[in-house]
């Protein structure tokens, strides 16, 4: 048989995937908004380019982030990606170096051994083929781990791993076949010609001693080429498409492109850049605390990619943002879910196999019709001028202790403030946004903005992180927006609060919307450290847990919520602190129901540290004396 033909599948696949990627990325580029186009162009010829190269090396090849979280998993990805990369690089060098002509077709370097069976028997070539064998071994070790992970995820310290579609399976199979078949092919060839190094050479020799190596070799070269070809051709319709797409994503991100609030080709790139590694699943509290295992970001993204009806998945998420923190590809999962929630989708026909190759997705942005309307809101009440506005927020009205504390604090600091929603105000609009009803939220935002502008206040203090985030991000204000923890910190720094020290061991719980949501980590800690003994807890700052009460989730049943709350409370109180401090009325209520430990808002803690006035103290002493006399 004429064995030369075996290169055909490989070539087919290679050229297909090259052309496909180029076309696809061009289309993505074309669909970008003008500003994003400019960003990308500017980025390409500037610093961002270098950053991207570096990031590609660190993340796409070395998989540093995964390494940090899970070394074994990191090694697996690294061996496959980086190993293969090196194999290609050195393969090409080897081919160019040792063959008559330079600039060979890719197939020449990939099937180098077939073309030069005698090569590397001795001398410098031998060193080179040793190196190539070493790389192959390196990759094979990673492959072994991959197989282990697939069949027994636990071994990789992964609680869960993603489920596969059948195209994924075929692609995976072909991927798995590539290197073993290369090993076998090379070994047989080497065996037949007594060449090859420690791996291919020795294995080849043993095989040759019992089998007609020369006759068998071609079959494995065919298999090798077929595996490569299949892999390349199926790439666009399988999860492994993320490998090329991730490179594109990195360039885009480094050029400053962000998700925004509408689906664009950037969201599409992100969708395709997800490797379904499953890290998001094992990080998700809904999974390990509430046993819900089909709504995590990996499934969400996969659903997007395959055009499934994912309304239920989209709604059923706490929006705590923990998955985004750990996503090795750095996909903006939160914003992408919100975009999906803003959509109004019906009649899906899931992508079928050939459609998977479609260069553009019909899934455009379909805005949901408005369901709410607040035309009944009028603010005809007289305008109140004040330097500081205090907006407690809906939830805070259910935790009056926080309000009382804030009043105490501001009074003792001599702050001239106006309690904006004392008689009950209007919702800040964030809950509506979390439910994907931005248009409606706008109505409330305008209503509140109007009040705030009229007040002419310089600082707007709120006790609710949910309000805080939306005030910061979606309100057009000249007023400085502060969460009360920030504000208290400010009062302490400028010395207008005299505080005692409470000898209490406390643990601080970062509310999602305040911590990950708005990046406020230090101020609350500073405040707490100032008045009490702040202990570390298992999950701090950007990896802090969600209390479970989140308004981000529309559909979660109260039972499941309390499971999450209980788990969070357990971990927070592991060091059995005297008090559990938080900075959100919703967290306070939710955790309060989940633990025996006293749950206090940071404001209450500070209020408790306020010195009691001498007069009061005297009165108390009198009382005590009186009592003792009566008793005695």
């Amino acid at each position, binding site marked *: 048989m004429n064995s030369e033909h075996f290169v055909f599948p490989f070539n087919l696949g290679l050229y297909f995937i090259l052309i496909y990627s180029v076309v696809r990325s061009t289309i993505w580029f074309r669909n970008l908004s003008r500003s994003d186009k400019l960003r990308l162009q500017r980025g390409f010829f500037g610093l961002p380019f270098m950053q991207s190269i570096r990031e590609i090396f660190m993340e796409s090849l070395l998989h540093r982030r995964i390494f940090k979280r899970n070394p074994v998993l990191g090694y697996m990805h690294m061996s496959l990606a980086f190993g293969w990369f090196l194999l290609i690089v050195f393969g090409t060098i080897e081919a160019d170096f040792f063959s008559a002509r330079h600039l060979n077709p890719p197939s020449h370097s990939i099937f180098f051994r077939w073309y030069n069976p005698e090569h590397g028997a001795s001398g410098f070539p031998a060193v080179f083929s040793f190196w190539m064998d070493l790389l192959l071994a390196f990759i094979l070790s990673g492959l072994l781990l991959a197989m282990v992970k697939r069949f027994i995820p636990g071994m990789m310290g992964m609680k869960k791993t993603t489920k596969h579609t059948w195209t994924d399976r075929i692609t995976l199979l072909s991927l798995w076949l590539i290197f073993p078949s290369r090993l076998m092919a090379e070994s047989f060839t080497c065996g037949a010609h007594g060449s090859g190094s420690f791996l291919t050479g020795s294995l080849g020799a043993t095989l040759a001693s019992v089998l007609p190596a020369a006759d068998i070799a071609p079959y494995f070269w065919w298999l090798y080429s077929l595996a490569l070809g299949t892999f390349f051709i199926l790439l666009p319709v399988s999860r492994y498409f993320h490998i090329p797409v991730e490179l594109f994503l990195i360039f885009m991100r480094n050029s400053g492109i962000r998700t925004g609030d509408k689906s664009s080709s950037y969201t599409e790139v992100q969708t395709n850049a997800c490797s379904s590694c499953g890290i998001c699943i094992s990080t998700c509290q809904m999974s390990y605390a509430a046993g819900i295992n089909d709504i995590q970001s990996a499934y969400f993204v996969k659903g997007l990619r395959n055009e499934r009806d994912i309304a239920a998945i989209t709604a059923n998420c706490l929006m705590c943002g923990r998955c985004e923190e750990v996503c090795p590809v750095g996909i903006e999962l939160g914003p992408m879910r919100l975009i999906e929630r803003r959509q109004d989708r019906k009649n899906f026909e899931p992508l079928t196999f050939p459609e998977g190759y479609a260069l553009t997705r019909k899934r455009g942005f379909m805005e949901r019709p408005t369901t709410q309307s607040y035309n009944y809101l009028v603010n005809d009440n007289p305008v109140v001028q004040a330097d500081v506005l205090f907006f407690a927020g809906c939830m805070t*009205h259910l935790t009056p202790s926080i309000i009382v504390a804030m009043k105490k604090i501001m009074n003792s600091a001599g702050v001239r403030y106006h309690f904006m929603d004392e008689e009950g105000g*209007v*919702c800040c609009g964030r809950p509506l946004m979390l439910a994907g009803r931005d248009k409606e939220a706008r109505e409330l935002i305008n209503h509140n903005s109007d009040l705030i502008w009229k007040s002419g206040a310089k600082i707007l203090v709120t006790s609710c992180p949910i309000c805080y985030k939306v005030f910061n991000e979606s309100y057009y204000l000249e007023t400085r927006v502060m969460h009360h923890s920030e504000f208290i910190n400010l009062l302490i720094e400028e010395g207008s609060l005299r505080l005692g020290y409470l000898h209490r061991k406390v643990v601080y719980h970062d509310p999602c919307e305040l911590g990950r949501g708005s990046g406020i980590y230090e101020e609350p800690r500073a405040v707490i450290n100032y008045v009490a003994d702040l202990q570390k807890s298992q999950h701090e700052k950007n990896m802090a847990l969600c209390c479970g009460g989140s308004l981000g989730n*529309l559909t979660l049943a109260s039972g499941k919520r309390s499971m999450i709350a209980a788990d969070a409370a357990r971990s927070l109180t592991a060091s059995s602190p005297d008090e559990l401090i938080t900075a959100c009325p919703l967290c306070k209520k939710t955790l309060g129901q989940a633990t025996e430990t006293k749950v206090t808002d940071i404001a209450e803690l500070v209020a408790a540290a306020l010195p009691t006035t001498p007069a009061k103290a005297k009165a108390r002493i009198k009382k005590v004396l009186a009592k003792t006399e009566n008793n005695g």
Partner: protein
Amino acid sequence: MSETLEKKFGFTINPSRLIDYDTSDRKVREYVTLKEPSFKLCFACGGCTATCTAGQHISFNLRRMNNLIRRGEIAPLREEVTRCMLCGKCLLVCPRGVNTRNVVAVAAEAIRKLERNEL
């Protein structure tokens, strides 16, 4: 009834206030119960309504709304569902753990579907 008749008699036939359970349309109720089963648990204590943020500005009454859904009285619902601000305050007071916020969302959805004949 035409203007002339109105003039002729000086009165009309008053529309009935009756809830006729056998003729009312219970599709919305079925949809809501399916999508948000906790809806069944409401025993009309009115806690949600008492704490309601929107309720301080207008007569939005979640307790009444639930009841109307149950009776299949859609007409008065249409506007009522649009009033809620979805702030979720009611979630924290409901003694029966009804996912009140989603009840509103689902009810609004159901009514939209009803109008599109998708129920």
